């Protein structure tokens, strides 16, 4: 029955053809599903793309990261940092601050005026522990040239006479300032915070919703991370390589003052660090090795981290209870860790420190 065989062959062939096509289509679908979207070049929206820039300025390295930024915004941020450095540098002979320190008077541009006013304001708030005229003392100890030495008591007494921010005469209307002889201004304790605030303003003016800048260890953020979570910021371990714990922040800053950052040892092995008590003229030794402050602005964080370090845990706790517009993590020289109430549920120890005791400073 040749004809029926022929028909069955034809039917069989067509059936095979059809099913191969179907199979190929199904196979392609399965492969696509298995591979997921990542093999296709469909990246998430441009608005999530981070842009990074590294700037070497103010005697440190700064990393700027912004999400959804155009390169031109990053350039603007970098320019602004260098502009501020040009105005505020104490050692650069072309800077405005250098000129004022030489002539002891002069007119100042808006940024320098802001720093002067901030210096006076925070000097008042911290009862003089943050003092922008402390430079000659720091210089005498060798921290500006790395020729470290312990000055004799007479030199220190002499220098202390010219350390008093209250003697800065600032005329707001004329934007002019004058200093008594022997006095010098230095904004090293505030400039990075001011710069960080300025950079984040550039970012937010450009419509950026998510950014983080790390200016030599000062971490300042804008908004939350693109995925809506908070930024995780580690608190450096004063003793070693890693961090002792983390804080979660959105739009706030974490600025740390640590004795471990810059110090020298004398022949007996005694440690002298760069955070000075402007009242005694000696490195501040109130029992703390590190203070990390969480604030809304960089400049306030800078002012507080230095002064709380000088205060020590008791006085710093009282200061916090009085003001309550910041939070802080304190590490004592003995290794005890304290946080203010607002960080009770926020701060967490890293794995290596998981058994550590946390003392909460309450209202």
């Amino acid at each position, binding site marked *: 029955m040749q004809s029926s065989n022929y028909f069955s062959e034809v039917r069989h*062939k067509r059936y*095979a*053809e059809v*099913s*191969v096509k179907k*199979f*190929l289509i199904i*196979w392609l679908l*399965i*492969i696509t599903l*298995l*591979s*997921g*979207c*990542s093999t296709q070049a469909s*990246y*998430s929206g441009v608005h*999530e*793309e*981070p*842009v*990074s*820039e*590294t700037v070497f300025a103010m005697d440190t*390295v700064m*990393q700027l*990261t912004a999400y959804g930024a155009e*390169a031109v915004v990053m350039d603007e941020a970098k320019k602004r940092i260098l502009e501020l450095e040009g105005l505020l540098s104490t050692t650069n002979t072309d800077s405005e601050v250098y000129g004022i320190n030489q002539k002891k008077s002069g007119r100042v541009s808006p940024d320098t005026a802001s720093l002067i006013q901030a210096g006076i304001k925070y000097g008042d708030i911290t009862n003089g522990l943050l003092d922008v005229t402390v430079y000659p003392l720091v210089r005498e100890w060798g921290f500006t040239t790395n020729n470290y030495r312990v000055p004799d008591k007479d030199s220190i007494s002499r220098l202390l006479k010219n350390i008093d921010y209250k003697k800065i005469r600032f005329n707001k209307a004329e934007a002019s300032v004058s200093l008594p002889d022997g006095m010098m201004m230095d904004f090293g304790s505030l400039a990075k915070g001011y710069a960080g605030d300025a950079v984040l303003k550039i970012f937010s003016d450009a419509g950026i919703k998510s950014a*983080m800048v*790390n200016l030599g*260890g*000062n*971490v300042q953020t804008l908004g939350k*991370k693109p*995925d809506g979570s908070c*930024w*995780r*910021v*580690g*608190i*450096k371990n004063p003793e070693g390589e890693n*961090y002792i714990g*983390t804080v979660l922040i959105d739009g706030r800053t*974490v*600025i*740390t003052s*640590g004795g471990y*950052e810059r110090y020298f040892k004398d022949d007996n092995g005694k440690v002298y660090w760069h955070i000075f008590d402007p009242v005694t003229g000696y490195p501040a030794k109130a029992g703390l090795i590190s203070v*990390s402050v969480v604030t809304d602005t960089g400049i306030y964080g800078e002012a507080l981290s230095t002064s709380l370090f000088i205060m020590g845990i008791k006085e710093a706790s009282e200061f916090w209870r009085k003001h309550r517009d910041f939070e802080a993590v304190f590490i004592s020289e003995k290794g005890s860790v304290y946080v203010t109430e607002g960080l009770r549920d926020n701060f967490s120890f*890293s*794995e290596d420190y998981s058994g550590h005791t946390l003392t909460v400073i309450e209202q």
Partner: protein
Amino acid sequence: MKRTKLWSLIFFMILFGSAIALLKPVKSSGTTAKIYRDGVCVYSVELSGVKAPYTLRFKGENGYNTVLVENGRICVCEADCPDKICVHQGWISESGAPVVCLPNKLVIKIEKGAAQDIDGVSQ
């Protein structure tokens, strides 16, 4: 099509399909890629947590490098340095040899076992 040919075809498609599925990057947890510029770590990312690929542009002394970050792996996808050795190195996903662009002083390293994804350290 003959039956045996059809089955061979099916067999090879399954084989090929499995190969593609297996070549997908392994989701290893705790794999942190760090990018260094001039010896300083400027960016850090937990590769297993990357949801969608994205690029990072780094400007160096002698030009730029565009780094492509995907789930579980990272590479330099574009650069304007003369040799483009960094681009030819391709993807890295395990700790081992880093991707290096010497003219731009860019280094990408993978470090295993970072406990948490930290965005920055305050010091």
